[in-house]
């Protein structure tokens, strides 16, 4: 066991998977000598050489398109997109090729690519270094969507993604890349894709969150505990395929639901969780389902800290839900 940050956990997972399986290759902008702008690939060029850690030209459709080709040939490419905000030049490759290769070929080909990208706010990067658009990917059949919130899960989920036969969009919470540290075993383990985690049990409110917001959720839950409100905090971890059973059983227990994400509220993934709950567990609900989310604006620069949901805001929502 060592204590690692989230970004170190990414690095360790990549290193171990590259050692384990020589089909695993990395590509992306500035990931080689520079070690990635967040240093996620630090040291890997030296260890594995330029044919497995490839600096690419500035073209996300080239990165993703080429990675898909490499996957068809039997490699396991793990491209890095420097910021999720820069994935859109490659969005066509994702929607058109990555998500549909298996389907359109009747299962002959699969594009087993794991796209890593830092997402979300937290570095005062304005609207082009801060967006959380996981909902686009979650609505694209054929993709799996994974967002870890701790170093332990980051390593275990990234390894699972690399071993999963399907394309995975792996979004890394950049705000907590370094801010969150945790124990990470040095040996090989995976955290299964498709399973959420009860991070804190509780009986009054089910609070669903993922990525950076998980920590906001925990902070709010602690605050709530002081006021004798027992919040259950569930880390969604995998958006697609969602761990529906865990969601529903928590709601059955508490009857009160709060969903938290930093993406804009309208059309965010919180809507899907909410809709599934009111389809499958309506009779258990004691209060309206509340979503605490980013505002429906582009991500702002100056007021970033106000834009991003924090424990203060979540606490207000908890109170509201309890008073209902």
């Amino acid at each position: 066991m060592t204590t690692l940050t989230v970004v170190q956990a990414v690095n360790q997972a990549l290193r171990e998977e590259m050692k384990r399986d020589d089909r695993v290759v990395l590509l992306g902008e500035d990931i080689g000598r520079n070690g990635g702008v967040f240093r996620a690939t630090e040291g890997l060029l030296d260890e594995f050489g330029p044919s497995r850690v490839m600096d690419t030209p500035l073209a996300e459709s080239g990165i993703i398109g080429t990675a898909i080709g490499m996957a068809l040939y039997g490699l396991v490419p793990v491209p890095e997109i420097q910021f999720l905000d820069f994935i859109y030049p490659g969005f066509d490759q994702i929607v058109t090729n990555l998500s549909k290769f298996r389907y359109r070929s009747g299962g002959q080909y699969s594009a087993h690519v794991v796209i890593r990208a830092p997402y979300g706010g937290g570095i005062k990067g304005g609207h082009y270094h801060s967006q959380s658009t996981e909902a686009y990917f979650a609505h694209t059949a054929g993709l799996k969507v994974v967002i870890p919130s701790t170093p332990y899960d980051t390593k275990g989920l990234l390894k699972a993604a690399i071993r999963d036969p399907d394309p995975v969009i792996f979004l890394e919470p950049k705000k907590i890349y370094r801010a969150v540290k945790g124990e990470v075993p040095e040996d090989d383990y995976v955290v299964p894709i498709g399973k959420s985690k009860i991070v804190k049990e509780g009986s009054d409110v089910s609070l669903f969150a993922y990525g950076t917001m998980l920590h906001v959720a925990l902070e709010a839950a602690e605050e709530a505990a002081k006021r004798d409100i027992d919040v259950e905090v569930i880390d969604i971890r995998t958006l697609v395929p969602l761990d529906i059973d865990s969601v529903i059983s928590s709601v059955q227990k508490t009857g009160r639901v709060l969903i938290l994400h930093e993406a804009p509220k309208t059309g965010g993934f919180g809507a899907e969780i909410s809709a599934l709950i009111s389809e499958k567990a309506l009779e258990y609900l004691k209060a309206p389902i509340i979503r605490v989310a980013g505002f429906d604006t582009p991500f702002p620069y100056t007021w970033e800290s106000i834009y991003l949901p924090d424990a203060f805001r979540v606490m207000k929502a908890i109170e509201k839900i309890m008073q209902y």
Partner: protein
Amino acid sequence: MSVEMLQVIRAEGTYDTTLEPSLPESDLKKLYEAMILLRTLDVRALSLQRQGRIGFYIQCIGQEASQIGSAYAFEPNDWLFPSYRDAGVAIVRGLALKTLFCHLMGNSQDVMKGHQMPNHWGYRSINLVSLAAPIGVHIPVAVGVALAAKMRGDRIVTGVYFGDGATSSNDFHAGMNFAGVFHTPTIFFCQNNQYAISLPVSKQTKAQTLASKARAYGFEGVRVDGNDVLAVYKAVKEAVVKARNGGGPTVIEAITYRIGAHSTADDPKRYRVEREVEEWRKRDPIDRFRLYLQRKGIWSEDLEAKVRQQADGIVSDAIREAEKIPPPTLETMFEDVYSEMSWNLKEQLKELLSEQRDVTKR
């Protein structure tokens, strides 16, 4: 970069012996047979569509030399990425026509399981990669396959097929640039058939030639007469050999013409004059090759009759066989989204089956 174009067989069937590729008679015959088979297939598929027996079709009439000549220049373990218009590539690869028609019909023996619309072929068994309709997206994928093979030390080449219109796409740019930078063994085979649906190539780009675009990525482009099967074969073969020997990518621009409509949903009378089509009909690639074979003493009326009869037989048998095959089961609609069916798909499938609807209506 010159705007010249490589031609081996002249309009009248005479030819340049200094340029003539050294192909044995058996290969020349195979090329001819393939061109005839392709034309036969094309005509029959169109009429099937008109009769409502298949839903949609994209013809390639006029482009037989480009497709057959180019595909013939690759080795079987090279990976090819045809476009929707390139039935010829599948034919050269030896795809059984029944398999092809099962795809056009989307039935239960369609390898794509009826997931994809007609002309969006892909067969792993013959290293033909499944196509997406959005123009250009297969280009970087072909580069990626080449790069992976290079990394693995496998001496294969990839060939990616696209049209003049595709040179404007984002992914043409990305794919070409990556191929240049990573020096991949990739042949970019561009059939300049003068149109992207209704847009003439003169409005698609102001570049002097499409081949010259290769220079923007640091490699060579070659123009060939796309209605001359030997010129196409020769240019592609040279590029393939170069690529296989570590010489990197090449663009081949085959100058040809789309004699038919863009697809069965298109009416070219709206945007081009018949006279232009007539001009190009005179340059028919099959006629041209026949004249050459005649001059070489290979062609005979007998041969022609035999080849045509054979082609008709192959196509008719394939259609007859394919039409017997029932549609895929409803379950197949939910397959291959993921390696394993996720809970939501299982739930949806279950609900669908519980509807007990009459699926003969479709």
